[in-house]
């Protein structure tokens, strides 16, 4: 961040800011002191929305803990106590449970924005890596949070996911016993998950602060993917993008509220309203929707260790994006061929999610043809890795991008002239 020339008008605030320049920091990162490209579109709203979601989860989470009991014998009942007895407990819990889904929706769109406009490219690699780390932390936090109500899906989801580590050669079983604190998922497991579920959001918050810091060094990318050349290409973050973000937040809150008030259990699984029972496995163990594509990849590989490796590789491969993409242009707007493959990748990821929600032994009836979900999952998994390992490196280097505009300002003025023809 550039040295601030911010001077509060109030004499006392000025003196305070000289001793602790936190007001300058806010002014320069979220206020008029941060200048952003003036052509940011609505895809750029999802960063601040993700930050909003994190705050909602932390605030509702802290108050839920005032009523929740992290013990295998009491957890399930304490959640019902929250739902039935605690004032507005139902609302707080539904906001927290649906808030997790909202957070993932927002973050998936945010990641897609980065992929589409090449926001991971130099000079923003560190920014991208921090983002992937946040995503990994979110997955761990979301998983452990889902265990806390101690329902059937909580218990069996925890069993399946922790058992993934038993695929580690030689010490797999010892690792799993270590994670459980016993010979099965039980009270010690629940208590440590609770502890970590409370801790990790604050780790995420710290990573978010680093993420924003790393954003403000090179500044925001933009839909054209070209560099900012001077002040004519930018507008101050406040009031322009604070207003735009606030408008987007309004729309997002409507979407959020529809789930919380009208379909609060739509994204959950009914079996989680049955208390955990180590003797009975539910007919289908399905993870939360945001893990489904990776669950499909896990099941697509016929080897236990191979499946686990592929599943983790599917996420970790995001770290390699800055090197896989060798295009001369950042933004997919100027890369029609690559763009087609990227949209296919999105469709494929949704397909993987659909496959993950179904049993591999079942069949999809397409017209007169029956395809097993296992086959479908394998095809989709193949495209997933093909995209990262072949399509991105080859197409990005081979496809000649369309001519790039000279500057952001020129392009914005051209667009404005087109929208409002000479009076």
């Amino acid at each position, binding site marked *: 961040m550039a040295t601030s020339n911010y001077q509060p008008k109030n004499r006392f605030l000025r003196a305070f800011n000289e001793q602790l320049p936190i007001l300058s920091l806010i002014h320069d990162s979220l206020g008029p002191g941060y200048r952003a490209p003036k052509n940011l579109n609505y895809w750029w709203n999802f960063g601040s929305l993700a930050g909003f979601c994190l705050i909602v989860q932390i605030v509702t989470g802290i108050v839920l803990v005032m009523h929740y009991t992290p013990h295998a014998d009491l957890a399930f009942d304490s959640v019902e106590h929250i739902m039935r007895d605690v004032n507005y407990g139902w609302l707080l819990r539904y906001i927290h449970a649906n808030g997790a889904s909202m957070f993932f929706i927002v973050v998936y769109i945010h990641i897609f924005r980065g992929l589409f406009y090449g926001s991971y490219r130099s000079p923003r690699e560190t920014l991208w890596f921090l983002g992937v780390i946040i995503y990994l932390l979110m997955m761990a936090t979301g998983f452990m949070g889902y265990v806390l109500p101690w329902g059937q899906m909580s218990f069996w989801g925890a069993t399946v996911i922790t058992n993934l580590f038993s695929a580690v050669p030689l010490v797999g079983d010892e690792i799993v016993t270590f994670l459980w604190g*016993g010979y099965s998922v039980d009270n010690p497991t629940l208590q440590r998950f609770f502890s970590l579920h409370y801790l990790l959001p604050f780790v995420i918050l710290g990573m978010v602060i680093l993420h924003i810091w790393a954003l403000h060094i090179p500044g925001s990318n933009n839909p054209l993917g070209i560099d900012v050349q001077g002040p004519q290409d930018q507008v101050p973050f406040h009031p322009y993008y604070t207003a735009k973000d606030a408008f987007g937040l309004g729309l997002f809150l409507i979407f959020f509220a529809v789930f919380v008030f009208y379909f609060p259990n739509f994204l959950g699984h009914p079996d989680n309203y049955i208390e955990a029972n180590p003797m009975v*496995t539910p007919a*289908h163990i399905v993870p939360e929707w945001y893990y489904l594509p990776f669950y499909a990849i896990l099941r697509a590989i016929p080897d236990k260790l191979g499946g686990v490796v592929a599943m983790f590789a599917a996420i970790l491969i995001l770290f390699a994006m800055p090197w896989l993409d060798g295009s001369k242009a950042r933004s997919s707007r100027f890369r029609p061929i690559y763009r087609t493959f990227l949209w296919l990748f999105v469709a494929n990821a949704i397909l993987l999610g659909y496959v993950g929600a179904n049993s591999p032994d079942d069949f999809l009836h397409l017209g007169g043809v029956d395809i097993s979900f296992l086959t479908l999952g394998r095809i989709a998994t193949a495209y997933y890795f093909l995209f990262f390992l072949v399509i991105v490196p080859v197409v990005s280097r081979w496809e000649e991008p369309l001519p790039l505009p000279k500057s952001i300002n020129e392009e914005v003025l051209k667009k404005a002239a087109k929208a409002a023809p000479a009076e």
Partner: protein
Amino acid sequence: MATTEQGTSEGTDVTRRDFLYVASGAFAAVGAAAAAWPLIDQMNPSADVLALSSIEVDLSAIDVGQSVTVLWRGKPVFVRHRTPKEIEEARAVDLASLPDPQADEDRVQKPEWLIMVGVCTHLGCVPIGERGDYDGWFCPCHGSHYDTSGRIRKGPAPKNLEVPEYVFLNDTTVKIG
């Protein structure tokens, strides 16, 4: 010059001070590791969990062809009183065709009593009895089929269902663990 000489000697020779740096650094690292160990080892099973390690099961109430599930170390254990047909099926298999070859004789102490941990070796679900393509167990989570000896036959699980340690205390009582 004196300063140059001093600089050279510090740069190339091992001094008493270098040794002190390395020694104190190494000592601190060992200390830090020792301090970290309790923080790590607290995650492992505690004494009370370890203490609950064996149970006794009364077999007299289990008829031929019947199976009971008991809880041992937080996990289900299947105790199955096998029929002669099931025993025969389990013993007629060509071992070379199995993903995890093991003779039925090595999995039981008395042929009619099959005792094993009811946890799928894939990802830890509880398989359902008398289902699947081999009349044994079927895991609903990811579709592993086990035979009448609890051996994996088809599906993603890599190993046969685990046989726990057990002893027959008398004809009608078995102690697991």
